[in-house]
């Protein structure tokens, strides 16, 4: 029997989205309301298992009476709010944000970004060939995962997952300021000298592929990574009695990556080093 937790009953509030009436439970964000109404608003730093950071500003919408645009991911819906998701003003900011990111960061492994660039007619090249980029080399300092900060949009999700929202390890933080800000461990040391416990929960939430399994990184480098040939099998971790769910990504009969379902009521997509990286014995065919 599956028990679905119902939680405390919440009042319903009414607002309008693009001129249409919408009803959402109290406490919902504008993004929740928009998604419920079938609006496809791009998001990057928003994470289903994390508190909204609203750093990327790609989800901005217009709210009647607000001086500036409003991040849909974090602003709570209010009764009577008039939200407009597709105005020229909101689309302009989304387009510029996408251009600013695409002109400075390697978004080649960010899901859906190519589609959004097209939809918003973004032209990242117009900042010229000399436009500053992050220009980071991948940090390969351990056998489990790679930090390729050339792909980092500084969404803070890894920091939040490593910190007080999930893992409480606090191995990483944003260091530096402005365009020079980077995710780093203390003293910008290698991961092996840090507090990292290799739970990989940062990889789980990374929206751009800046953090990836070493296996994925190597296969991409070799040109053998092919998601169309991969299957995903969700199973239960065999290491201890907690019963975390694992999703094994298998290509050519080899496990190439392990994720965890975000809707699992116990783990919310989080694992430990054993569940995340300890799968070699499965493939040991003697």
């Amino acid at each position, binding site marked *: 029997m599956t028990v679905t937790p119902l939680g405390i009953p919440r009042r319903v509030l009414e607002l309008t989205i693009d001129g249409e009436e919408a009803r959402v439970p109290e406490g919902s964000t504008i993004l929740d309301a928009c998604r419920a109404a079938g609006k496809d608003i791009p998001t990057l730093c928003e994470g289903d298992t994390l508190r909204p950071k*609203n*750093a*990327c*500003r*790609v989800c*901005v919408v217009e709210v009647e009476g607000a001086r*500036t*645009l409003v*991040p849909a991911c*974090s602003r709570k819906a209010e009764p009577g709010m008039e939200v407009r998701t597709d105005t020229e*003003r909101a689309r*302009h*900011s989304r*387009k*510029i*944000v996408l251009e*600013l*990111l695409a*002109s*400075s960061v390697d978004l080649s492994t960010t899901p859906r970004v190519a589609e959004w660039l097209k939809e918003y007619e973004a032209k990242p090249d*117009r*900042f*010229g060939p*000399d*436009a*500053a980029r992050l220009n980071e080399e991948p940090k390969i300092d351990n056998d489990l995962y790679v930090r390729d900060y050339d792909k980092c*949009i*500084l969404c803070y999700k890894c920091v939040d997952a490593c*910190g007080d929202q999930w893992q*409480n*390890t*606090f*191995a*990483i*933080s*944003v*260091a*530096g*300021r*402005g*365009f*020079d*800000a980077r995710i*780093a*461990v*203390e*003293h*910008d*040391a290698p991961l092996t*000298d*840090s*507090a990292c416990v290799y739970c990989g929960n940062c990889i789980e939430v990374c929206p751009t592929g800046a953090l990836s399994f070493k296996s994925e990184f190597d296969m991409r480098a070799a040109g053998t990574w092919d998601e169309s040939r991969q299957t995903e099998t969700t199973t239960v971790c065999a290491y201890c009695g907690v019963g975390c769910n694992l999703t094994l990504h298998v290509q050519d009969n080899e496990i190439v990556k392990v994720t965890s379902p975000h809707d699992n009521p116990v783990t919310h997509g989080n694992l430990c080093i054993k569940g995340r990286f300890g799968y070699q014995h499965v493939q040991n065919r003697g």
Partner: protein
Amino acid sequence: MDLHFGDSKPTDDERAAVDALLGPPESSWEGADRSDADLRWARGGREARDRRDLLLPGLHAINDRVGWISDGALDYLCRRLTVPPAEAYGVATFYAMFSVKPRPATVLHVCTDLACAAAGAPELCSGIEERLGPGSGVAVERSPCLGLCERAPAALAIRAGDPVRTAVSAPATVEEAVLAASAPDSAPEEPPAALAVPQAGQDGLMLLPRVGVVDPASLDDYRAHGGYTALRRAFELGPAGVIREVTDSGLAGRGGAAFPTGRKWQATASQPDHPHYLVCNADESEPGTFKDRVLMEGDPYALVEAMTIAGYATGAHKGYLYLRGEYPRSLHRLEHAIAQARARGLLGDDVLGQGHAFDIEIRRGAGAYICGEETALFNSIEGYRGEPRSKPPFPVEKGLFGKPTVENNVETLVNVLPILTMGAPAYAAIGTGRSTGPKLFCVSGSVERPGVYELPFGATLGDLLTLAGVRDGLRAVLLGGAAGGFVRADELDIPLTFEGTREAGTTLGSGVVMAFDDSVPLPRLLLRIAEFFRDESCGQCVPCRVGTVRQEEALHRIVERTGTDAAGDIALLREVGRAMRDASICGLGQTAWNAVESAIDRLGAYE
């Protein structure tokens, strides 16, 4: 919290600097050597973590003593405060005045910002760098505005040690700046703050009556010149009465946003959550602004008294004074003033015997313009990176340490004194309908008598510039600093009020009035403003983090271009600027394009 620390050890100096702030460690859990006793008990939990707000003072202690923050020093501080080293590293690298790499004990900050650039900072800088090359024992750093615009060009030398020494050279020559850096102790004394107030000693001043008249170190002198009559009046009125007076006076915030002070106080005072906090925003970093420095240096007790009144009215027993890191003299004057007030029962458990407890703690910034944003300032005090929070919730509801907080600028608070002594109706009668009272203006640039001027709201830009002795050949005036806007030389009839500047399509901001004659190349000025925003963006949101970089790049491309050659980049600037204004989290990104836009549209730059 299961923290991981590396093997780096602090030097004796570093350990001593931290221990001087925090006291010696009580156990190995806090960084002392391990003893058998430590195996029997553990200390940690909330009590240990609750001292996170001492992280920034701790970083200052190390930097002041040694000049930079080593791995071992940072780790030791983290052990003492139960702070994860990665987070502390993120905080240490956030501030421009800290270095996590070795550097000479003496750092000479040479201002290259607007007023100083117009007064020859580039030549000064290269002259200094020639004399103080590698091996000289001095690191020369090009700095954003040091708040010494009336004496441009300016330089500030900081020599680490016990105690840390500072010397200001302004107006600086190569010779004097090098002397200040190589021998800060024997550098000539800074001129008194009153020299920055051309009106000093005149009758009728309401905000600056004591600057240059009283001894800023003497509490008796302050009291002999009307000090502490406002606080007595406040106790007569009661908290609600004080808020009513402030509301009726029409006082609006002087830090730039012009929010009605009475409403802010009322909203904080009525919050059921406790404790309430008062924060004085003295992180005066807007290029061209130095009024708060002059107030704090020339009349420090006025701020102490005003903060006490604000604390009393809003139900706060603790006031934090967040002071700009580049203001050493303000720091000394205020430390002295607070200690004197405490010794005389004007701060403490029972202020003036009226049963109200209130005390003030100074927290120093460390070189981050963004920390003048109210919520970034909270994060900075709390020991986190000075990144703005998203609003709502607003500070009156959830501010410092998540508690109801009223945050006011120095000048705003000092206005409360005349409001209480003369009464709200008399105060409200000054100025115009919607901008009441007196206002301080920071006049610098192409004028004979730069400095802080106090004028009632309603005076025009022309009145002010005439008073300051504007020089011939005026090309443009920058109002409100880097986040403000330019106006033309033929727009001097703009009334200097909140509504008057708004109607004229510009802003009063924090009261910066910077005059430029036609000898200053406008594109260079705009480029400096863009560099400023690029350097000072905290990096949290994309529009500002990358947008300020793209803005600077475009302005760089067109620095020598005009007309159709510049048109493409100007169109690009407009598009990026619009998104920065619409989609940035805080005021920094939202205003980063203002000055450039006004220069293009009003002054016809690049035509």
